[in-house]
């Protein structure tokens, strides 16, 4: 039982990161109809920027992370402008177009930071504390709390602000939104920038848990995308549940099957998608004759 909770805790902290990634995917997909496979690369850029602020500029972690979010959000604005012709297009084109954009970001990262990775020390140096026999790393708690706060802020933004309402309107029907005077282009740019900032937050939070390399976003991006699909693509609560789900499945798979954790995770994922194609909080699509 103890080891069960131990595995669960480690699954939840990675799950929180996946949830942030899934949230970025879902936000961008919902508002712009863009399935963004460059999201993992944006995360990697965010992780590098944060680690540069934290390690090289010696800013406190709590300052470095928001700064990285702002910088990456600005980078997101540029990427959005380049990818704009792909919005609401054929999926094959979006797929390879955004993968191409991700390749560009990786190349830029190699040019700036070189292809050698860097380790980021944990900003929380307290010893792990003990909760009912389960050892909990202080940093895991930070990750989960920061994720929860970020999601609450995003939910408030979407529901309580005019811009948030405008973005929801664009998500539902971008032509009708234009007709009532919403600047769809600006709304999309803001959505993409927020998605990029969330990716940067995920990257910064995961940096001390992993190793920062130009290709770190590849596997995280795939896991995050799977999380978004599992929860229900385009849904905010779905992103949270899907992210935690993939994290927990991965943790238990790693514990029980060691090296085969990806194999088990994705086979389980495939079966779940087959059972419930629209995810837990899924988009309903109706095909009418």
């Amino acid at each position, binding site marked *: 039982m103890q080891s069960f909770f131990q595995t669960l805790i480690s699954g939840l902290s990675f799950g929180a990161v996946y949830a942030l990634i899934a949230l970025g995917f879902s936000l961008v997909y919902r508002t712009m109809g863009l399935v963004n496979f460059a999201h993992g690369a944006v995360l990697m850029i965010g992780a590098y920027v944060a680690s540069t602020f934290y390690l090289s500029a010696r800013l406190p972690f709590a300052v470095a992370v928001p700064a990285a979010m702002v910088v990456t959000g600005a980078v997101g604005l540029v990427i959005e402008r380049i990818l704009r012709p792909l919005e609401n297009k054929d999926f094959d084109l979006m797929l390879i177009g955004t993968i*191409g954009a991700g390749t560009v970001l990786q190349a830029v990262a190699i040019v700036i930071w070189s292809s050698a990775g860097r380790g980021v020390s944990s900003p929380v140096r307290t010893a792990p504390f003990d909760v009912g026999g389960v050892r909990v790393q202080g940093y895991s708690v930070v990750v989960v709390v920061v994720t929860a706060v970020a999601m609450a802020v995003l939910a408030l933004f979407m529901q309580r602000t005019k811009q948030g309402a405008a973005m929801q309107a664009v998500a539902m029907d971008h032509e009708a939104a234009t007709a009532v005077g919403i600047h769809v282009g600006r709304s999309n740019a803001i959505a993409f920038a927020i998605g990029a900032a969330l990716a940067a937050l995920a990257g910064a939070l995961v940096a001390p848990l992993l190793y920062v390399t130009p290709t770190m976003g590849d596997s995280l991006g795939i896991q995050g995308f799977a999380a978004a699909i599992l929860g229900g693509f385009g849904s905010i609560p779905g992103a949270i549940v899907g992210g935690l789900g993939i994290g927990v499945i991965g943790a238990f798979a790693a514990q029980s099957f060691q090296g085969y954790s990806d194999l088990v995770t994705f086979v389980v994922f495939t079966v779940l998608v087959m059972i419930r194609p629209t995810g837990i909080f899924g988009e309903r699509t109706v095909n009418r004759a």
Partner: protein
Amino acid sequence: MSLLSSLWSPWRARAGGLAVLAVLAWLLPYQLNVYWISVADTAILYALLAVGMGLVMGVAGQVNLAQVAFFGVGAYATAILTTHNGYGFWTAAVLAMVAAVVAGVVVGIPSLRVQSHYLGIVTLGLAVAFTDWITNAPITGGDSGISGIPAPPLLGINLTSQYLYYYLELIVLAAGLAFGLFVVHTPLGRRMRAMRDDPLAASAAGAEIRRLRLIAFVLASLYGGAAGVLYAGQISYIAPESFSIADMFFLLAMVIIGGRRSLAGCVIGAVGLTIAQQELINLSAYAQLGYGLVVVAVVVFAPAGLVGIPRRAAAWYRRRRRITGRAAALEPFQPLPPAPGGAGAGGTLLEVSHLVRRFRGVVALDDVSLAVRDGEILGIVGPNGSGKTTLFNVISGLYRPTAGTVSLRGRAISGAPAHRVSQLGIARTFQHLRLFSNLTVSDNLLVSMDRTRTWWNWRYLCWAPGVWRHDRALRRRAAGLLASFGLAQLAGALPGALPYGIQRRIELARAMASSPRLLLLDEPAAGLNGEERAQLAAMVRSIRDSGVTVVLIEHNMGLVMSLCERIIVLDSGRVIAEGAPAQVARDPAVLEAYLGKSALGESALPAPQASDMTAPQTVLRAPEATEASS
């Protein structure tokens, strides 16, 4: 001069171009050093993989990000069976192909439930699962891979030579490309392209969507498996890094940049990117930057890939120079040959009894019973939302009924899938046109004309001449039908480029191509002008006279009154009236449904209006105006 012009037919130009390419490919090894010949070998393998991708993604429209796993299954199965189990190379190769096909079915199964980005992440996930397995399993040698795979023995030829191996791969690629092109341009590929453009309309035209999706994945896995077998035999050592997700994306870039809808484009993309990668391999980061930018630029500026550029350039040139070709025109409809024994015996053809269809709480069809008589033209009218299209959708198999039955000549068909209903002789058109937008007019008809079941396609593997003959026969019949509907000059056009009225006619011709016994027309006159409506009426009469029973939903009361012999009125999912047009138009229940109760109350108004009420066309036209605007 005459010799030149006779040589310059498109077919001969293409055949000549192919011959030149074949000779060049044959002579290529004489120009290459050892390093570049291995690059050429790699390029051929990528081309083989890309053709498989082109078939599943470009032709069948199924997102497949597991092609690299099929490649891996082929390679690893060959390696394990030769080194571990001691089989001979060719035995192992055959078994490896079987393994690849099994993998194709496994990866294809999710396509029965999910599509688009969902299918993308599921297939990608399965590819990740495969790479995870080969990097961990003891039998695959883990990270260090498997070495010592024997070269294939072949008639005493030394295939350890990269030069001679090139020819083996070249022959396999040529055969694979030829087979792929054969599939694309014959019934199986046509159905797959139709399915890509509009799965719903394809199933209503008789295509079995689920099996076609699986066939598409199996085709892709055949190419992947063949490339894997050749790869194992070529380099005699395999390791997980050759089957990574990065390789998958590289392959995807080849297909998209070359042109996913053209198999030749896939080959061009594969060869081009392999060479570019070798040229730029030492420039690392900047080469990667350039590669990424090129991918984005191609996707944004040339979505059809490199093969689409010449056509776009030609179109641009013609616009610039204001060159307008001889415009192809619609010709008059030629009446179809009348049925020998007159139009039908008058018995019951289709019987709908106590049909109910609910959508969650909404009852779209509420205990509908009606009979369609053989050889009649039956009109179904009713206000918007009265359940007319739902009735068609249930009859044609797109929806399952909640309760009740539909039977065709006494045989129950309710609950049968759409392709089965189509095969039993019911064809339909759609309220909002559903033509296959990337298929020519002629191909649109051919899809529906092909009445074979899916298992018929085993002939592709064993008896290609039979497929070819079948296709020729279909084309001959299609030419006749195109001529009847006045579409002969437009046979090669894409429907989207044609005026709306012509598109309506194409959809009618496509429905007739399946030689139905019962034709369901859903608002065939919507959007047509007066002249086109008159043509439509003539066509529908001729279709009936040729022995096909017609049921049409229509809001244009003038057309319904003049064309239909019998009318059934639906309101809120119930049949409220049935009978001859004039009789139905006077029915108080019908007037109430269309005009509301208050309108009936006002019918006690001055005489002129009351007499208007008896003229069916005037009365029933009133709601038409409001419905057209909604």
